[in-house]
């Protein structure tokens, strides 16, 4: 092995990479917010009495779960172009990850909903609460606890998935920045090792803050 590691240039690029990490976090957070929104719609649609709505929800969920996330991002970037919809790489990445998040979270929410016993609703209604009140005050908070852990898992997944943006030409997220630096200098290992450390810390940031939040939120 006659390779000399050059770590200094990599560390000099740290500010640039951290700025990229911020973009990564931004995409992940946005994709989760949008993903939760669409997942709720999908969960509602899959319990609807309209056949077409149910079919639409089922198609979305099954496609999201049974094709690679990279494929989904590709579709958003290249595939939609054939229909005249041209998304830039940032939006395409966001759309792809959102699609994926929503598909997985819809199943999570459905499971969470089923896990809250019907007797809780009964007890709430017997106290004079309306259907909406019972859902908001009794079912939703309990469901939130059940889906909290899968939700944080999906958030970590979302962060990891953002790295795929580079394949559709995104150059300002953590992987994109790292790749630009790599192309300029060919110190592949050093740059990507540093990126790996940053991704690891981002993932830990999410899991640790989730644990703290859970500890504050769920005292029961």
């Amino acid at each position, binding site marked *: 092995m006659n390779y000399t590691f050059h770590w200094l240039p990599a560390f000099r690029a740290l500010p640039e990479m951290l700025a990229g990490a911020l973009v990564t976090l931004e995409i992940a957070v946005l994709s989760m917010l949008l993903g939760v929104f669409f997942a709720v719609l999908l969960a509602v649609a899959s319990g609807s009495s309209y056949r077409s709505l149910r079919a639409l929800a089922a198609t979305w969920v099954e496609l999201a779960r049974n094709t690679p996330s990279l494929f989904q991002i590709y579709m958003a970037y290249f595939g939609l172009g054939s229909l005249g919809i041209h998304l830039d790489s940032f939006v395409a990445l966001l759309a792809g990850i959102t699609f994926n998040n929503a598909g997985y979270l819809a199943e999570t929410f459905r499971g969470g909903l089923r896990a809250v016993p019907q*007797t*809780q609703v*009964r*007890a*709430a*209604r*017997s*106290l*004079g*609460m*309306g259907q909406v*009140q019972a859902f908001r*005050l*009794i079912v939703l*908070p*309990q469901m939130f*606890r059940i889906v909290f852990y899968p939700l944080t898992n999906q958030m970590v997944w979302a962060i990891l998935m953002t790295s795929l943006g580079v394949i559709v030409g995104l150059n300002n997220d953590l992987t994109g920045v790292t790749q630009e630096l790599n192309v300029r200098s060919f110190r592949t290992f050093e740059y990507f090792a540093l990126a790996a450390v940053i991704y690891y810390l981002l993932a830990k940031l999410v899991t640790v803050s989730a644990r703290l939040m859970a500890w504050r939120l*769920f*005292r*029961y």
Partner: protein
Amino acid sequence: MSIEIQDVHKSFGSLEVVKGVTMTVEKGEVVSVIGGSGSGKSTLLMCINGLEPINSGRILVDGTDVHARGTDLNKLRRKIGIVFQQWNAFPHLTVLENVMLAPRKVLGKSKAEAEAIAVEKLSHVGLAEKLNVYPSRLSGGQQQRMAIARALAMSPDYMLFDEVTSALDPQLVGEVLDTMRLLSAEGMTMICVTHEIAFAREVSNRVAFFHKGRIHEIGPPAQVIGNPQQPETVAFLKSVL
């Protein structure tokens, strides 16, 4: 002021569980409903506050038809408290919050008012020491007493008890029955579906014996329990005593 049940029929699918029940409970009365499991007595309770729809007949609470179209069930349920066999505590709320929730959100009381009511009702059932713990930390008997306080916090005119001691460990039954005795002594109108024959005999003005979806015998406890006329009642009492 009364609950009037008039020829009520109720089926689940093809299974008819209540087959024409007629009974009136006057304000201030305590009526116990006894009978074997599956005889339809719990279902009847659910029908009284509209948690289960009925197939035919009528139920009038203070003259309001529970199952008529246009009846505001949410409003009606404010005056009918119900306590379930499985106490159904809200696990994500503390004991105090469990009891405060409905007065605040349903009756629109202020936080201070709701808290005052909740503390009063919880003290009444002997849980003044447990205000800020979560239900998971309570014994079954304590959770059941909390459920009673939760229903009482709505200041109901009627209380329905659905086998409230059946899911409890034997040594916890007494504390819940004591709470119910207290309520009856205060003049609360109560319908108790129960397996506690001695309790029924002691607190009730009348006892109804349910069998296969019908009331076979109804009257003062001294008559129905002490001197039953129907062979089914005799057989049932023999099996449980």
